[in-house]
């Protein structure tokens, strides 16, 4: 299989680059080891589009954060994704922290972040009545926003696919291929060799290992776990925006936010660990989040919790993004260490990568504009948010839109079928593309129904359906067969 460029990893970084490169006449392959997207750090994070005041001027992060923020405000329409343009507050509890807010304000100005303003605690509580009465001041960032990260990653990769890119799921890179001059020739995977003169490493927590295949040992990824609580959507409006604690040496600390879909959420912790795949929550981590949440929002309604989760971010030893083309071997580009503000920065990083290919790898890849590029991509209809006339029309044209599958989030069978048409193969894929199973019963009602639809549409037995690929089958066989097997033992 011959391509112009192979992207390893289809998180927000890889998918974003794929979409950007699909603006050119290129044959693009995107590889991801997961069965559904997003799967890594892009799946489990704060879903924050940062205002751009947090990064030291001169860092790579600072370079991409504000431009990335601006791009998302545009992309949300092009890609039809939920972006809650609610702004954010950094909360100060004393004079020392208020002083720190001033530093952040100056830093933000230097980074080009617009509209930053320090407001009093009183003014903050007028906007957010449920925050702590002990907060004395807050840094308001009007351009900060909260995105539906599931939708965003799927929208980016769908848009790339509309424009010709090919996505290969359950395709795990196992090594790099080199030509006779020891330059990049492609990627070896569990599904065979993929050939291309340029390989982009967007491997997230695995980026260090992939870079080492190319002989690059210039950076070190430190997998860092962040744990979260997600609350029932009846908490909508308890907080309207995104609340940060004042950052300390330990990081940005625990935040409280209302997700793009209206759930109250809190997290993350920042625990360094060896294992890049350990996404388990811990008693200590969850206790820390709850403490942090209650500091900002004393009546944080934890009894309405519907799930806990953890994501693993690709921190780097340098603390900064690691982006660049290797001199040797030629054809290898790192886009690594993309952690906070990674989601925010990703569209700006993608544009930069396109420029990088033009400037530094012109001998290996030609970026000729694709005049047929279609920027727009339509989301799967979101029944919950449609007005009644639109709902009637959908149901009239396709009866599957008159059948509820997920009652918590009011997701119809029509949406599930459309997700399957767009490539969903697992319960989690349907969940991330439609939100079926993200509500208060966490799939208790819809999981068997989604499984039945997947089984019927894909023509595979019900007991072959998985939660999230691999060995995550929902069922272990038919009851009678199971008993017979048991008898035979």
């Amino acid at each position, binding site marked *: 299989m011959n391509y112009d460029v192979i992207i390893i990893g289809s998180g927000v970084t890889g998918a974003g680059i794929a979409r950007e490169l699909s603006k050119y006449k290129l044959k693009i392959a995107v590889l991801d080891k997961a069965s559904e997207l997003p799967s890594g750090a892009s799946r489990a994070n704060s879903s924050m589009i940062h205002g751009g005041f947090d990064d030291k001027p001169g860092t790579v992060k600072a370079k991409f954060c504000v431009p990335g923020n601006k791009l998302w405000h545009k992309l949300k329409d092009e890609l039809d994704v939920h972006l809650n343009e609610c702004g954010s507050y950094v909360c100060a509890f004393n004079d020392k922290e208020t002083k720190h807010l001033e530093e952040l304000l100056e830093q933000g100005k230097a980074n080009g972040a617009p509209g930053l303003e320090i407001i009093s605690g009183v003014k903050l509580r007028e906007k957010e009545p449920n925050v702590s009465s002990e907060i004395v001041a807050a840094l308001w960032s009007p351009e900060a926003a909260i995105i539906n990260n599931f939708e965003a990653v799927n929208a980016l990769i769908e848009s790339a696919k509309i424009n010709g890119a090919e996505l290969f799921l359950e395709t795990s890179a196992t090594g790099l291929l080199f030509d006779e001059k020891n330059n990049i020739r492609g990627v070896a995977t569990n599904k065979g060799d993929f050939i291309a003169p340029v390989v982009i490493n967007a491997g997230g927590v695995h980026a260090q290992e992939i870079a080492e295949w190319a002989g690059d040992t210039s950076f070190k990824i430190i997998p860092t776990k962040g744990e979260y609580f997600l609350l029932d959507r009846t908490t909508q409006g308890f907080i309207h925006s995104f609340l940060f604690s004042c950052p300390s040496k330990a990081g940005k600390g625990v935040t409280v936010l209302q997700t793009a879909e209206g759930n109250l959420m809190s997290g993350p912790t920042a625990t360094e660990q060896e294992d890049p795949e350990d996404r388990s*929550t811990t008693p200590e981590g969850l206790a820390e989040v709850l403490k942090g949440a209650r500091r900002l929002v004393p009546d944080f309604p934890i009894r309405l919790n519907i799930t806990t989760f953890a994501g693993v971010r690709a921190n780097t030893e340098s603390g900064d993004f690691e982006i660049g083309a290797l001199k040797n071997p030629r054809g290898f580009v790192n886009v690594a260490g993309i952690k906070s503000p990674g989601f925010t920065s990703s569209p700006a990083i993608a544009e930069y990568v396109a420029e990088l290919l033009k400037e530094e790898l012109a001998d290996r890849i030609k970026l000729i504009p694709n005049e047929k590029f279609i920027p727009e991509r339509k989301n799967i209809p979101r029944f919950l948010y449609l007005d009644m006339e639109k709902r009637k029309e959908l149901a009239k044209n396709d009866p599957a839109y008159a059948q509820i599958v997920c009652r918590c989030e009011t997701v119809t069978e029509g949406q599930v079928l459309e997700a399957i048409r767009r490539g969903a193969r697992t319960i989690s894929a349907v969940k991330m593309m439609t939100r079926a199973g993200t509500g208060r019963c966490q799939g208790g009602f819809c999981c068997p129904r989604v499984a039945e639809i997947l089984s019927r549409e894909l023509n595979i037995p019900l007991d072959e359906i998985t939660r999230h690929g691999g060995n995550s089958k929902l069922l272990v066989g038919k009851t009678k067969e199971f008993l017979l097997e048991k008898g035979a033992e």
Partner: protein
Amino acid sequence: MSNNKNIATPDGRQDVLIIGAGPAGVAAGIGAKKEGAENVVVLERDWDLGGILQQCIHPGFGLRTFREELTGPEYMHRFIKEAHEVGVEFRTNTMVFQIDKENNTVWTMNKERGIKCLNPKSIVLTMGCRERPLGAIRIPGTRPSGIYTAGTAQRFVNMEGYMPGKRAVILGSGDIGLIMARRMIWEGAEVEGVYEVMSWPGGLRRNIAQCLDDYGIPFHLKTTVTKIHGADRLEGVTVAEVDDKMTPIKGTERFIECDTLLLAIGLIPENELSRMAGIEIHPVTGGPVVNDLLQTSNPAVFAAGNVVIVYDLVDNVSDEGLIAGANAAKFAAGKISTDIKKIPVKGGQNVRLFSPQLITGEKDTIIYMRVTHPIEGACKVTAEPGLYTQRLRYARPGEMNEARIKASAVKANPNLKEIIVDVQPI
């Protein structure tokens, strides 16, 4: 149950529109018709009638009502048959997804008919309840497949004919969990044990005996799951004993290998629609605040069964359904005055939750309640002032108690300001 008629009537104004054809809804239909309502329609989102009882194929239903042990489907069949005989209309595959609080407009969807709205004269909410998910109790660990609420597993086994796993741990001792422990054994799986964080069982003693003891399934009180293991499929759980504050006790942790964790950690009334309709929800029961006519804070809307308060026995659910249906019919006929005096009920000693919360004294009524702590010895249920006293051999949170209130006793006391229900030792 194939005797499901589905007569389409013109979408005029129904006298009584009932949402959900489980035991409460079917009984409400019968109650409304018997009270004389002309046009009584029950909407059901599933393709068949009966609600959750369709998948409850074990015996044990209807001991009070029919003095027989019926399976869930058999129990429902008797009510559905009667409902058809008295002329209740059922519309299956019809989901209510919105109720507008301004005018009680009910929005329905159905694959053949699309999206339609109805404007009934009265509504009965009979949506039942749902199971609490894992997230509600915040157990740390991974999130693999193989974790199901007991009811979801029951659907897979009894309705679809598939096994959720080979070796199960059951967390929580609600009745469905106990029933599923036995079902898993019957289907050839292993059940390592049932773990309950409280120091008393959540379900009925009868089910502990018949589903656990008879099959030698260990039952551990004051013990809970503290960690989930496994990336793709569940590989095991850690359990630990808890102290009186329900905090896991260090040193008591034990790893159990299993591929399935079934949850029976409580049921919550399903009230999305009630909230949309602007109906007052009780913070403790999780169901609508109702008076003894089973009327909610919206006078045209009645509610019955597990959507109001989670019952132990389906017989109670059917009883309440009949009452709500009859009163909804009366309301539709203009026979219920909107300014009836309502006396509030208060939970006194050792009463965690109760329903109804308001008493009109228009009819004899039963206040259903659950105790906070078990009393293993002689005790009594009382409704003060002097409305009811009943001696009991014991009182347990897993088994509801009742206070029977005579309308005549309420009417005889015109100065009655409140009714206090207590369960206390004697």
